[in-house]
């Protein structure tokens, strides 16, 4: 019987073709042919490396663009089985709503009488005492520059029956609402909800964890001082009293923000300091409870769903109606809004509400924002939702864990898991890394006979050409790079100085000018060596690209939004930096990079806010920009500026 050879032939040939291709010169020696084959593979890849880079860049940026697409995400689900959201009967009732209304009337009277922080805190403490809840106040003072921020927090602790009191849940409300980033809108209804909850929650013996009720002064500052005192962390510009009443380890926290009269939706705010996110199970549980127990639809942030309110879509009118009304386009637009908002909070490391301060202490926290509307919901709905959410977090036997900390919430019930978004930034950083390594390895060799025709060069990579090794000026380049980071440190010192915050209008153009000229002056002052200057620029570019790529890929896991911002600002610009023969071109290129690197100095408000967040809340966006981002862009600028 003949073996059935015919069908295999095609496949064998297909498989053998690349192998034959890379081992064309038949050789007797096996290891020699292996080396030849490897060489062939390497040169095959290196010759097409630009193609690979281009593909990686395009894929990466395209991927970033399709992140809001409804096809990429999936519906949220509850990962932790212990949570069992919405499985309980709630007891919050109209009597408790009445109590909340009474509290509100008293708080409004307090507001109208222009009570000081201290008076307010004492009033709330007395209210807690009347309910039989142990309560105390805490004074604090922050000093930034010439200003001192004072305030008084008040907190009460409902000790859980039968439990050792080693674990706790927090319900908090800040005196100022997050509306307008704490511009003065009061969160009176949030505070009165907390007070009413104190009386209500005390009446049940089912709590397995202590319930800590905090009414913090100000917007972010009060809670920051309270948490610092609770965890015993010290900060040089903070003076805060010790807390008289201790409780256990806090696992979860709910912050209530209810600025309006009534609300139509509950919005979730979840981004924390330095881009830390709470465990997604908390958000998902709340979303389900709110929808099914409270009957309140949930939003991400406080903007309404443009699919339900088509006039809010924000799409320009010249887009054809067929496209505009297409459900997928509408979903994309709505989800893109959410993603952009998420990126704007997370990239800057800024907490989107008071809850964000908890994350640094490993506490999962979110803010429930009652989106102001004329109706239909009020104290009754929010009380039931909070009660049921507390019952859910009360079920926890261990901290929320698993990998539910990496996600992008594209809608209240849709999210992207880490595998669906992380590759975008990583692909771009890989492209940059390839580019840098390519330049690095090319720099090791110089070609002696450049007159070989182009065609021959592409097809043949044999020993016809002679290559000579050359040294790369690594030490010099490293010195330049370190110098740029020192430059960044000086820039940071200038931006955080008292003088800058006092007169930003004058300071920011001045700092910009000075720091734009410093590199030029230093370069002119340095003695120039003719010998290896051509490779100086290229070596700098190689190392710059490698460093930038590493920074991006590491940041991608810690703070994806920041990594995305870096890929947009540095991905292409750093890859195309090149020196030129003409000084004018070089100088122009340098100026472009300077604008890219320190142009943010002209965004004075943003700069001052970032500095405030650094000084008070230790958010490292400001130092990161000055110490990492600006130096990297400046290095690219120097690549252009250094002569060929």
């Amino acid at each position: 019987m003949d073996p059935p050879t015919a069908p295999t032939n095609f496949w064998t040939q297909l498989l053998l073709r690349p192998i034959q291709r890379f081992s064309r010169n038949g050789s007797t020696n096996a290891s020699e042919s292996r080396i030849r084959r490897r060489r062939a593979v390497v040169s095959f890849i290196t010759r097409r490396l630009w193609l690979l880079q281009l593909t990686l860049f395009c894929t990466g940026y395209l991927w970033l663009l399709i992140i809001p697409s409804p096809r990429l995400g999936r519906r949220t689900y509850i990962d932790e089985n212990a949570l069992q959201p919405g499985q309980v009967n709630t007891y919050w009732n109209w009597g408790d709503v009445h109590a909340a209304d009474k509290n509100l009337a008293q708080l409004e009277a307090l507001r109208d009488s222009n009570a000081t922080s201290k008076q307010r805190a004492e009033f709330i403490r007395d209210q807690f005492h009347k309910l039989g809840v142990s309560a105390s106040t805490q004074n604090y003072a922050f000093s930034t520059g010439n200003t001192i921020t004072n305030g008084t927090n008040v907190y009460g602790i409902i000790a859980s029956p039968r439990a050792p009191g080693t674990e706790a849940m927090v319900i908090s409300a800040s005196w100022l609402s997050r509306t307008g980033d704490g511009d003065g809108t009061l969160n009176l209804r949030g505070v009165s909800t907390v007070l009413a909850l104190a009386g209500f929650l005390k009446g049940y013996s089912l709590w397995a964890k202590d319930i800590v009720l905090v009414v913090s002064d100000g917007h972010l500052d009060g809670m920051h001082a309270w948490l610092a005192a609770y965890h015993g962390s010290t900060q040089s510009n903070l003076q805060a009293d010790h807390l008289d009443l201790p409780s256990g380890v806090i696992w979860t926290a709910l912050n209530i923000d209810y600025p309006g009269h009534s609300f139509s939706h509950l919005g979730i705010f979840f981004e924390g300091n330095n881009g830390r996110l709470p465990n997604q199970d908390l958000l998902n549980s709340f979303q389900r409870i709110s929808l099914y127990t409270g009957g309140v639809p949930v939003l991400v942030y406080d903007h309404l769903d443009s699919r339900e309110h088509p006039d809010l879509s924000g799409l320009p009118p010249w887009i054809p109606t067929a496209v505009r009304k297409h459900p997928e386009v509408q979903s994309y637009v709505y989800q893109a809004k959410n993603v952009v908002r998420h990126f704007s909070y997370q990239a800057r490391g800024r907490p989107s509400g008071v809850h964000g301060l908890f994350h640094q202490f490993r506490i999962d926290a979110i803010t429930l924002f009652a989106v102001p509307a004329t109706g239909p919901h009020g104290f009754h709905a929010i009380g039931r939702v909070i009660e049921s959410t507390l019952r859910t977090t009360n079920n926890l036997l261990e901290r929320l864990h698993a990998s539910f900390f990496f996600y992008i919430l594209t809608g209240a019930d849709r999210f992207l898991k880490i595998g669906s978004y992380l590759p975008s930034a990583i692909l771009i950083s890989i492209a940059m890394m390839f580019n840098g390594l390519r330049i690095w390895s090319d720099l090791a060799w110089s070609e002696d006979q450049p007159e070989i025709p182009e065609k021959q060069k592409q097809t043949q990579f044999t020993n016809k050409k002679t290559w000579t090794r050359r040294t790369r000026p690594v030490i010099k380049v490293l010195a330049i790079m370190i110098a740029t980071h020192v430059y960044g440190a000086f820039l940071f010192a200038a931006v955080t100085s008292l003088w800058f915050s006092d007169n930003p209008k004058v300071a920011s153009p001045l700092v910009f000018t000075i720091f734009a000229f410093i590199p030029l002056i230093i370069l002119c002052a340095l003695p120039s060596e003719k010998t290896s200057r051509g490779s100086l620029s290229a070596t700098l570019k190689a190392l710059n690209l490698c460093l930038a790529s590493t920074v991006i890929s590491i940041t991608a896991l810690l703070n994806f939004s920041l990594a995305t911002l870096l890929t947009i600002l540095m991905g292409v610009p750093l890859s195309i930096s090149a020196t030129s023969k003409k000084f004018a071109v070089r100088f122009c290129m340098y100026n472009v990079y300077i604008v890219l690197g320190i142009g943010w100095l002209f965004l004075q408000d943003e700069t001052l806010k970032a500095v405030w967040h650094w000084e008070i809340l230790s958010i490292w966006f400001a130092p990161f920009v000055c110490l990492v981002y600006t130096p990297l862009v400046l290095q690219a600028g120097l690549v252009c500026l250094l002569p060929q």
Partner: protein
Amino acid sequence: MLASWKARLFVGLSLSLSVVKASGEQFDEQLTIQSLRDGKVASTFSFKTLLKGVSPRDPRTLGAEDASQHYNVFPLALGQILREYAVTELHLSLNAGRWNYDRWGYPKEPAVGTGAELWAWMGDGGQVSVDHRWMGLRNALAGLFCASLGSLDEQRTTSPDRSFEPEGMLPDWGVPHRIRHATLPSENVCTENLTPFLKLLPCKSLSGIASLLNPHRLFDADWHGMGIHVLWREDEGVEVRLTFQSVSDPVRSSLGRKRDWSFRSLFDRTIDRQCPIAKTSEITVALPSEGSYSINPEPSVVNAGKASFDVATIDKPLDVALQWSGDFQYVSGFDKPITPFSVQRTLRGSSQAHGQLSVIVKNHQNSTQQVVYLETMPWLVQFYLHTLEIRVDGVRRDGIFSDIAYIPAVPHSRPATFQGILTLPPSSALHLTMDVTKSFLRYTEHRPDAQRGWDLPPAVLTVLELDSNTSTARHPVNPRIYTSTLLVDMATPDFSMPYNVIIFTCSLIAFIFGSVFNLLTRKFVVVRID
């Protein structure tokens, strides 16, 4: 026919009872109920069995045949354990909740530390070592009370003799006595512990005061705990005291604002008949010092603000009830401390490697007080003693902490014992801080259950009263004060599946990166050697 049989049985029973009363055993039961300032009600059950004229077993006789044990009232199961391991004094308590000293004052029974606590005084000498008997004792008690007392192993056992002095007497056998003490803060008390507890009582929960011990209501209380205390007095004999304490909240369960209570509302039971074996059976109600109230039924004796009921003589079913005329209002300052001093202990810092132990002791009295401060810390948390710092009202002070005894912890085997005397200046707050390091556990040492952190035992403070004549002679006269327990987060790997996936993916990417890096930075050439 049936009637005469019943009559004969009754005669026989009363005969046997009279025998019991005549023999060297005596059983007394008592219930104390007190309304607390915050509307809660503390009830303390105490069942005392006295074995007259008997002394504990000398450990040197452990190898020999023991005297036979014939008890009528005394619990045999417990007696056998005591004889088997030659235990002179034994205290076991199982509590749930945190005793709020500031609001509730000192408890009737001092052992209120959260979780399980076991300590015993045993004579040293004889063939079997104290530690070996201690191991046997805790395992036997674990079996008797269905509690995880077997976990009170050498990783938790200490010998703090200054804070836990014997409550009875130690026989003078010419051999020294040793103490062994261990706590297990994460041990919960529940019905399965109460059932064996009731079995030790002569009337079980069928009659007498013990019939009020209804698990459904007791374990709904805000705080509850049971204790077994065995001690010996030379002139009396071996005494076994079984106690149950609870703090219930009638305000919470009344759905209104009433703090009225009755046996019905507190325990959902009444006393229908007396325990025939009990020599005395007394119910004491601390009468409120303010407000108008009424108490039903009429007490047998009212003396010094206390109403007493004799269960034997009073009409049954007995349902003592205390009723106030108005609604309950929290008076201002209802949580101002009523104890002479109050303690707060916290573990600060959110890092998984380091932390700071902070103890604040506030002296509310106008005189200097001395307290013995004791930490029995498992090796999970280790002290940096050189960072010990004491501030009084914010000012650093030396010489406040004296007589320091410190046995450092040995990782993976022995807990630390840290003991000293704190001198509290009058009306001041003393703040003791000490840096600690959190151990890194071997991966087999992580428990298989839900990882909520590790419970650390309470610190114990014992007041020393300065003797008026000589300041050197000191005796602890006041009860021990237990601080709250702590929960510590150790560095814990996330044992869940997604992290494994991430780790595998990272390894794969590292491998690919390495290969690509090699390809890009190396050149492969064929070198011909001629």
